[in-house]
């Protein structure tokens, strides 16, 4: 039975959001395209580029088809939820702020053992890497704390701090349950709770079945190629536009690089599905990762250039 004094999953989310909202973060909503991690949301991937300061917090359901376990494994999910916080640039007391956020969700740090253990993060597909820690609470990794150094192959200035809370495992820790599926998602006034199992189990089961057994490999390849081609075509057009001396600033500014980024995310997700299906051979694998990386890196460069165009007019928020 989940501890009734501990926050429910949604209380945890609300408390963290409230905490970071009070520190000036934009509370964004989850991005509405499949992503493997909160980092891939444009709220992180694109916002960490360029000079504008930004603070944002959002929950991001993150899909990793290969991690699916048909809802059978108490610790593993096809889709888990991250609470992602970006602080750009990181304040000097960013670690202390983070510790305060733990206190805010009800963790008395005097009664627990907390360590920052080296853990650097790298995403070859996004041309991104950072340096940081996994935050260990009584032996459990509860947060990934990263100082971004590069994104889309571009050196960042200023850098951003990215805090990624694993919401299911943090809740399971607080509620002291051994299975994610036992987590109380919400509790009503009478103390009746709705479990994670009720809300999500079917989703885990059926999407595992889809990803491992039903996803049509031929069509997934086809989709991947279509999205890739459209994304690349948009990038090419922006390239032509930006070197066109007659092109106006407004024309450049309205060019849908964000649309192209969505297409890039689609490619990444399709790659993950094909990977889960075991449909990617060794030789293909390297090639496809390189192709997606090329899109991501190209988009990051174009995005930075587009922001600069807008900057000159002073029209960027």
């Amino acid at each position: 039975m989940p501890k009734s004094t501990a926050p429910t999953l949604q209380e945890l989310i609300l408390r963290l959001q409230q905490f970071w909202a009070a520190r000036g973060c934009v509370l964004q909503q989850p991005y509405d395209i499949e992503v493997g991690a909160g980092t891939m949301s444009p709220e992180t991937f694109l916002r960490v580029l360029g000079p504008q300061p930004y603070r944002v917090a959002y929950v991001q359901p993150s899909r990793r088809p290969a991690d699916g376990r048909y809802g059978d494994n108490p610790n593993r999910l096809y889709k888990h939820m991250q609470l992602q916080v970006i602080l750009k640039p990181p304040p000097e007391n960013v670690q202390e702020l983070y510790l305060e956020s733990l206190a805010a969700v009800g963790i008395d740090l005097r009664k627990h053992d907390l360590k920052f253990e080296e853990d650097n993060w790298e995403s070859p597909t996004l041309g991104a890497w950072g340096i940081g820690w996994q935050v260990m609470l009584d032996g459990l990794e509860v947060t990934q704390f990263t100082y971004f150094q590069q994104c889309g192959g571009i050196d960042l200035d200023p850098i951003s701090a990215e805090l990624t809370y694993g919401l299911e495992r943090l809740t399971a820790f607080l509620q002291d349950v051994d299975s994610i599926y036992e987590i109380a998602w919400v509790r009503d006034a009478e103390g009746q709770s709705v479990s994670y199992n009720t809300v999500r189990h079917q989703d885990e089961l059926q999407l595992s079945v889809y990803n491992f057994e039903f996803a049509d490999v031929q069509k997934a390849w086809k989709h991947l190629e279509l999205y890739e081609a459209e994304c690349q075509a948009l990038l090419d057009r922006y390239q032509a536009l930006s070197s066109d001396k007659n092109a106006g600033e407004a024309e450049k500014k309205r060019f849908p690089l964000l649309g192209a980024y969505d297409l890039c995310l689609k490619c990444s997700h399709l790659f993950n599905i094909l990977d889960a299906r075991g449909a990617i051979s060794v030789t293909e694998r390297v090639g496809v990762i390189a192709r997606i990386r090329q899109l991501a890196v190209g988009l990051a460069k174009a995005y930075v250039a587009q922001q600069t165009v807008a900057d000159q007019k002073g029209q960027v928020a």
Partner: protein
Amino acid sequence: MPDFLLEIGCEEIPARMLDDAREELSRRVKDLIVREALVLEEGLVIESFSTPRRLSTVVRKIASTQADTTEQVLGPSVKIAYKDGKPTPAAEAFAKKVGLDVSKLEKVSNPKGEYLAATITRKGRGAVDVLSEFLPKEIASIYWPKSMYWRPGKTERFVRPIRWIVAVLGGQVVPVEFAGIKAGETTHGHRILAHGPLKVSDAAQYTVLLEGASVIADSKVREHRIRKALDAETRSVSGARWREDADLLQTVVNLTEWPSVVLGSFDRQFLSLPEEVLVTVMRDHQKYFAVEDASGKLAPHFLAVLNMDADADGLIRHGNERVLRARFNDARFFWDTDQKLPLVGRVEMLRAVTFQKDLGSYFAKAERLVHLSGELSPILDSVGRKVDHAAVAEAARLAKTDLTTELVKEFTELQGIVGGLYATAQKHSQAVADAIYDQYRPESMDDAIPRTLEGALLSIADKADTIAGMFAMGLVPSGSKDPFALRRQANGIVRTVAGHKLPLKISMLMGQALKGYAGGDAIKKFSQQGEAYAKAIQGFFRERLEFFLREQGLAYDVVNAALAAGDDDIVDVVARAHAVAAVRPSADFESISTSFKRMKNILLQASETKKRVADPYDPASLKEEAEKNLAAQAPEVASLVKSLGAKKEYENALREISRLRPPIDAFFDKVMVMVEEEDLRATRLGLLQMLVNDFSSIADFSEIVTEKK
């Protein structure tokens, strides 16, 4: 005579980097103080400290100022400096340069003549001044395996953001600035346990002050405390002991400022999982110490090292037990799931697992391993070593299949071991299971080599295949760059071949390994084959052999001498090197070595001046008694040496060669080689050439470093 303290307060420094960084900082501070003449006569006392959040150096009693120095600066010659007794512009310019009036300049004589000179006294700078000027550069220069930048628009790098600096000399702040942080006298204690910042007024009180704020600055003291606490906690389980683990201990020492230990337990039922799996989960993933019972078997307990003073409510123990339970449950889930598809059924799956991006899949690698190990095992047969050929082939075919298992995907460090355990569970023969289990051995200098011949062949084939592919692609290790750990793998081959005394020559092994790639896709990426490949491989393995022999305590000249006589047959080189080392202390051998060096020099000189060498020479053409004598004795010794060498009795053979000392000494005493008479000279050179040829098959004696006579 103040004390100096430097503390760099940093966000958590990775445990693996902490010791080196601490030592480097203290060395840099020491060098600076020495270089800048701030050392007192009684010498330096330096202490260095580190915790995850700080690197500190305390220097007891340094000079508060540098001593004044005087120096004589030479100016223009007097001839140029004065004209008609008056100073010229040259004299004026010099006076201006040294900041003295012309009348204050001196005249000095040296062998070149008389010159103007000035004695300049330099006032010693204060230590505060010196330290504040040079310390920022020293801090910036600390080496980090991986570093970051963090300030907008700034380029300085450090392992993690620096948050404070303390620099105090005798109660006074040294105004050091680095990365926008101005040094002060304020430090910080333990993140959770300390009550606010602390003022350090006295460097000598630094560690005491920190201890009051729940920080043990000295890592040795932390280690001691952790050991004590591990002992104490283990005592509550009767007959139990914690498993010593030096690496883990160092890690937890460097992860804590105020360590304590809790003993936790797990369900006995998990003990049915292989110990290798349980220990890996505890040690590598949770940084727990394993506990064993009186019989040495794993006990259902673990020890977690906390960065906290206590666990009054037992919450920390409970939390750690919960995490471990989840991890063990995972492991068991993976174990059970993996069993549903035996290793044999996983061979095809290896097509989708990358070995190396240009070298293809593990499926292709497994095929090559079957083939290569199949080439090697008959060679063992030929010298009467019994190898189970079928087991070698089966082990090679299945060796990499555990890469497709959930357990290895989760615990990659268990690759090979898991395959071996599964092979046992799936009723493969012991020979197959052991070979798979041991295939990655030895993984380090301290790791054991494969236990069986089958395991040795698989391990050697696997490593040779990797090295061959990489070298063929030109991915050769250089300097500190060895991303595929090829040196370690070659060391493994050398150790395994030597340990099992296998008749596998390097050129044959690596030649066969390269052939394994024939007909595959990888070959398109090969840039180095044939002679270039063979040469690169030979040079590479020669270095590994040198390393291996030096590790065995052999002197470098002995190693060079043995390798110069052949570096292809590992077992043979080892035997020859040890034989040379055994006879090396004898006076005869020393003398023979000197003589061979002399012969080689003479032959080299002859070849450089294009002198004819009679080959073969005619002993009848020799004139002197001494040379006739040598020529008469040498063939007999040579044939004895040859037959002893064939029996690998190298030490006896070398002792035989030493018997040639008297005739060789007499030869060099009485005979001049490079005489005018062409025929005689050619004959004598021929004699020397014969000696060098006949007696260099065990070692090249000219490589032996002898006392200069």
